[in-house]
């Protein structure tokens, strides 16, 4: 098994490498083609407001789905089951509908470049700068992370290429075309990349399903036929035999089916790992039906049993305990030991994180701000939601198939690369790699363009105004935007290794996002639907909300999950709403003239009012 998997992970044929190189060259040419259309900041940041709905929708999806989603979502499906698909189903479509009909019309009609700019108009400069700084830093971190995932987890794993060489190649290609053509280049390259991504993703889905025998067989094989597994780790350089591990665990009272050495591409020095297949998780002399308690007891029993194999200064631990009975259950109980309980999914993800992400993420919203009409802006969001519904089929389902085909992978994140190596023939393998690269590059270019927009408009623009007393003109904004583009992509390349090796990918992003998604959504929503919300209310809601998030994230055992980002997001949203309402009611209402055109029921397509608002913002 080990040899088979290693073989599957190795190398691409000449035709695959040729396809990858042709793709990179093609993207570079297509992206730089749009340089001739960029004459002003409006062209660079908003594509001259000429984008049709289909391009917006495709670009939103491909910007949102990066290579890390292919890798990490499939990995999560491999270890935790289909529940991870909630992020693209309940965590996308309803939020995109709310974004299309509540938030987008407001941004679009007020003619802003960024969400912080909108918040600045609705509340004050403080809210604008804080929000912009948080997003600016977050987007930069995301850039580094995306680059590292491609370099390390894809290209290094499968081709053995030096990850930093790959990172700098990505930096060069995406940097050049984003610098040249701005949002137009980004969106049009995204359209091509989405098509490639879907072709590659569907190929992987079809071949995976073919191999396992269809959906019904997959369900049966995963849920009923796959035995529970443990990953046992010893911190030793000594050779420990599988037989010794097997007998130690059997002595603890478990029915052990077999012990296999862990298949891992990167073996750590000083650590020996084993996969232990169990007949069941039944524990001797216990009638406890609570799966969480059973798991905990099983870990204790096994660890105690393994102590006899450890020498001085060595120890053994149960790193993972995998069960598969809920791998086809999309809504898991509140107290599940997996990371996606239904309460967190519906309230934290569906109501807060998803809406905040789709309505408050500059990388998503910026496409709609470049729409040729309001209908295209809304339609693009809905079309994007529709396309996004297919992502779990292309990503999570192959992860589930890997449970059947490659059950002994130590890290779930290796599921997709291993499946590509195992299933796809030469040519198609190259195409799938191009799909992964497309997913990565489209996320990088979008994030890069959005970062430079935020830093140019909301941070540098404000600073420039403070120092000179003048607003940033179009020509200077274009130059500054391009400089930020270059600086950020180089910085992201330099930070890639450090950021990428910090924490588990998907949880890291979600945790970071949840820190300020709840508070941001609270002030955005109240700012739009409640005219009484004041500048001080918004500022207090944002700042205290982030503080509250920090408090919740640091208290152990407050929520059932180990990484309770879904619950933290929900409660920080509720807390920020309360703070914003209380502080607003205690402070002086905003003048009616200031909020005209920016709150529910007063939105209008009125150039005169918007120019008055713009002047007042100055």
């Amino acid at each position: 098994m080990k040899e088979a998997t290693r073989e599957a992970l190795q190398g691409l044929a000449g035709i695959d490498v040729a396809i990858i190189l042709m793709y990179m060259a093609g993207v570079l040419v297509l992206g730089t083609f749009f340089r001739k259309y960029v004459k002003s900041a409006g062209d660079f940041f908003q594509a001259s407001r000429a984008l049709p709905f289909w391009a917006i929708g495709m670009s939103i999806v491909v910007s949102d789905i990066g290579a890390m989603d292919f890798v990490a979502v499939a990995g999560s499906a491999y270890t935790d089951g289909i529940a991870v698909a909630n992020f693209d189903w309940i965590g996308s479509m309803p939020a995109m509908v709310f974004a299309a009909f509540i938030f987008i019309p407001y941004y679009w009609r007020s003619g802003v470049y960024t969400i912080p700019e909108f918040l600045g108009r609705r509340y004050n400069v403080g809210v604008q700068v804080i929000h912009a700084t948080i997003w600016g830093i977050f987007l930069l971190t995301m850039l580094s992370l995306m680059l590292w995932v491609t370099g390390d987890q894809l290209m290094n794993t499968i081709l053995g290429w030096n990850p930093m060489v790959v990172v700098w190649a990505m930096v060069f290609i995406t940097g050049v075309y984003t610098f040249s053509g701005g949002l137009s280049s980004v969106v049009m390259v995204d359209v091509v990349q989405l098509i490639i991504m879907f072709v590659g993703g569907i190929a992987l889905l079809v071949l995976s399903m073919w191999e396992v025998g269809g959906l019904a067989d997959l369900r049966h094989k995963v849920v009923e036929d796959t035995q529970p597994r443990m990953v046992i780790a010893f911190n030793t350089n000594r050779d420990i035999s599988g037989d010794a591990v097997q007998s130690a665990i059997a002595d603890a009272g478990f029915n052990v089916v077999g012990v296999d050495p862990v298949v891992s591409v990167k073996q750590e020095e000083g650590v020996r790992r084993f996969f232990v297949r169990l007949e069941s998780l039944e524990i001797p002399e216990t009638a406890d039906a609570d799966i969480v308690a059973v798991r905990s007891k099983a870990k204790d029993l096994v660890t105690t049993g393994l102590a006899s194999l450890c020498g001085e200064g060595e120890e053994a631990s149960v790193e993972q305990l995998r069960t598969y009975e809920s791998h086809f259950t999309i809504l898991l109980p509140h107290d599940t030991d997996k990371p996606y309980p239904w309460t967190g999914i519906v309230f934290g993800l569906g109501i807060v994180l998803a809406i905040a992400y789709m309505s408050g993420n500059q990388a998503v919203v910026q496409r709609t701000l470049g729409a040729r009409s309001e209908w295209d802006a809304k339609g693009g969001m809905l079309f994007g939601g529709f396309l996004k519904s297919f992502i779990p089929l292309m990503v999570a389902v192959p992860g589930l198939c890997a449970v059947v085909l490659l059950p002994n992978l130590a890290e779930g994140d290796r599921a997709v690369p291993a499946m590509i190596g195992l299933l796809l023939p030469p040519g198609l393998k190259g195409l799938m790699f191009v799909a992964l690269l497309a997913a990565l590059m489209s996320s990088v270019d979008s994030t890069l363009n959005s970062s430079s927009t935020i830093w140019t408009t909301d941070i540098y623009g404000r600073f420039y105004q403070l120092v000179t007393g003048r607003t940033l003109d179009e020509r200077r904004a274009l130059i500054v935007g391009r400089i930020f583009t270059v600086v950020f992509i180089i910085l992201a390349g330099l930070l890639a290794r450090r950021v990428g090796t910090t924490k588990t990918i998907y949880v890291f992003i979600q945790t970071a996002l949840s820190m300020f998604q709840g508070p941001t959504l609270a002030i955005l929503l109240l700012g739009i639907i409640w005219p009484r919300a004041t500048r001080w209310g918004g500022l207090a809601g944002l700042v205290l909300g982030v503080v509250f998030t920090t408090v919740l994230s640091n208290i152990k055992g407050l929520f059932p999950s180990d990484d309770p980002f879904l619950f933290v997001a929900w409660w920080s949203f509720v807390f920020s709403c309360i703070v914003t309402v209380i502080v607003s009611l205690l402070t002086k209402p905003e003048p009616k003239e200031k909020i005209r055109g920016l709150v529910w029921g007063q939105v209008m397509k009125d150039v005169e009012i918007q120019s008055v608002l713009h002047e007042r913002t100055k």
Partner: protein
Amino acid sequence: MEVTGLAGRMSEAINNIFGPPLMRVFQPMNAFLAGTYMPWARVVAVGFFVGTMVWVFAGLKRAYVNLEAPSKHIWHDLRFWTVVSMLPHVIVYLYF
């Protein structure tokens, strides 16, 4: 992951100061939710999709939803798009 240094000390301080009062608020809620009958979770999730569709169809004015639409044909009606996009999700949440 064990956090050390200043971040670790801050985390410990937050845990000590805010942990006990917040535990008293959240633990009863966790106990209540852990006992929830699971089919209710499915009802809530499906209700979220259906409720959103109903809101777009009945709660929003057609003129607001379709402002600047290229035509009045049904395929340019964003309410129709909403239903087409969301119905498959209802089926998925009933299947899984």
